């Protein structure tokens, strides 16, 4: 009789655990860490674009810019792939796709400025860079708020 009671309690505990686990926030520490790393890199890059305005460094084709965009686009592909693969984070795919689109549009705007300079200025103005930076940061933070990655 005692064995039956014990088995019954154990079954209930397991059932409760399963229900709670299925209600928990989706988790993926790697994606969370990658988004945080991207955010730190964004801060360094966009601040450097503002500081280097008027020099070669702020151009879309500079070595610094090329390195940043290669790394960012590659990391973004990893984030999208991981979220697509982990069905439990599917709700976030839309937001991550928006972030990916925002990066592409920011890069396209920088390239368009270099192709059509304002006189001898081949870079986006500091207030434009700040504008892009703030919005991208906000979107990255929004994704982090919506999902618990830890």
């Amino acid at each position, binding site marked *: 009789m005692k064995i039956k009671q014990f088995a019954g309690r154990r079954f209930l505990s397991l059932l409760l655990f399963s229900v709670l686990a299925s209600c928990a926030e989706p988790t993926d520490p790697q994606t969370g860490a990658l988004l945080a790393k991207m955010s730190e890199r964004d801060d360094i890059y966009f601040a450097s674009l503002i500081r280097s305005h008027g020099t070669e460094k702020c151009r879309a084709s500079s070595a610094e810019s090329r390195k940043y965009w290669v790394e960012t686009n590659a990391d973004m592909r990893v984030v999208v792939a991981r979220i697509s693969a982990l069905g439990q984070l599917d709700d976030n795919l*839309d*937001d991550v*796709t*928006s*972030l990916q*689109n*925002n990066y592409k*549009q*920011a890069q*396209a*705007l920088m390239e*368009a*400025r270099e192709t*059509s300079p*304002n*006189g001898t*200025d081949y870079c986006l*103005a500091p207030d*434009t860079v700040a*504008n*892009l930076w703030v*919005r991208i940061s*906000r*979107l990255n933070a*929004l994704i982090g708020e*919506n999902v618990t990655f830890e």
Partner: protein
Amino acid sequence: MSFFSDDEKIEIGKGIADLLKTALGSPELRVAEEVDDALAFIKKKRAHENWTVEMGQIYLEFVTENAVATLSASRKLKKKKVRKAIKGILTSLVGVVNERIGFPILPTP
């Protein structure tokens, strides 16, 4: 410098809320404000920094995408639906926007 009047911004917010079948609230008004800021920004950049039409269009796409993400998150709505609503509002404003900004930033339907 505002692109739309305060009344027009409220109308834009209402239009978005109607298309989303939600009550008008601060998220919709914030999107209207963001679209207004973006258009005023583009107009200024075109006048003072020789932004091309393409640059204006890219920037408006950037702001719209960003606004879609924030509105869908705050209203817990599917992004596809929110994007359709914001694009719908912009399409309904194509005449006045293109005239005020001075170039075809929005495609004529």
